[in-house]
């Protein structure tokens, strides 16, 4: 024999089942048992309408899929890192994992060469800028000459640039 509290709770459950089912079939509301506490009906409708299901960011979703992919098949991910250039791709990690090209010495070298060349170019531009500022006016040149240590002159700048371009050529 159910107590009144359990009986009310059971009625509430039936109403909630109806409410959720009604939404699934596109009905506006659930059939209402008149014995259901009106306060329960009020709160249930309000919560059903207002408590939304937040979704994580797309970035997080894809990032976690990637990490799960690595966890799901660590051997394959290690093989992918070790594979020589041009080798056929390993079995796919079907977890939305972005395919990374194999990191071999061949594929890494152009990156390093490119980086060194960029650094040299930036250095050359910087030295040329300093040199041109120094030679912009007679006053500025004199001020710079006064501030710099002995031997730092436009002639030194030319030698540096010459050295850099000599290396590059």
């Amino acid at each position, binding site marked *: 024999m159910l107590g009144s509290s359990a009986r009310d709770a059971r009625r509430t*459950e039936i109403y909630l089942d109806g409410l959720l089912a009604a939404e699934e079939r596109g009905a506006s509301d659930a059939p209402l048992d008149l014995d259901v506490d009106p306060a*329960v009906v009020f709160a249930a409708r*309000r919560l059903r309408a207002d408590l939304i299901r937040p979704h994580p960011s797309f970035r*997080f979703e894809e990032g*976690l899929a990637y990490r799960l992919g690595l966890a*799901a098949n660590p051997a394959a991910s290690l093989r992918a890192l070790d594979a020589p250039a041009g080798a056929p791709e390993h*079995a796919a990690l079907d977890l939305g994992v972005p395919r990374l090209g194999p990191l071999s010495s061949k594929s890494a070298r152009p990156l390093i060469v490119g980086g060194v060349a960029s650094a040299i170019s930036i250095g050359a531009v910087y030295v040329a800028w300093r040199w041109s500022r120094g030679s912009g006016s007679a006053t500025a040149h004199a001020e710079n000459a006064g501030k710099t240590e002995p031997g730092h002159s436009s002639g030194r700048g030319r030698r540096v640039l010459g050295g850099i371009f000599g290396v590059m050529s």
Partner: protein
Amino acid sequence: MSRPVLRSSQESPRTARLDRDRGLVEAARRDPANFDALYRKYLPQVYSFAYYELHDHHAAEDATERVFMQALAALPRFEERADSFAAPSGSGSDKQASTFRVWLFRIARNVIANERRRERRRPVAPLDEAYNLPAGGDVVEAAALREAGSVAWQAVARLPEDRRRAVVLRFVDEMSTAEIAEILGRSEGAVRVLLHRALRSVAADLRGGMN
């Protein structure tokens, strides 16, 4: 919710629940790469459960990640069991039903409980603030949460822990009483009473706010 089926064993026929994720689970067991389908299916539910419990976008993401990592690692040990779904509520069945979803949410409950224990050792932002802050997440999502749900959520947030969890699992994650009972480790009857009392409290809170 799981689909009711008739058991074909020698026991007396009664309805039991078949895990509707059985195919996906078996595929993931054969090849863990197939876990992706389960992950995509349950990510929003697990994340929202964590978000409503932890009130913080980043904490919810961290917890969600741990849940799925643990689930992936433990998947070979997962056993689907249907017995207690078929048993009448309060029958004291010692077997726990375990559809994949229930199992996953049990992991989530434990991960979130650990996270909350850690939070208690750190300063925590007030709940109202947590609901109003975008927390660096999706601005649209945060705005939607603020505008549509903050009053209702604040009423839910003031509930005792068990009632709040039951409400979130019922209304946000759309679980049955039986599933919630398995996740919270309570009887179905106890969960029914939890939900009933929670709704009465929320109604009183919302009506009080209107006056």
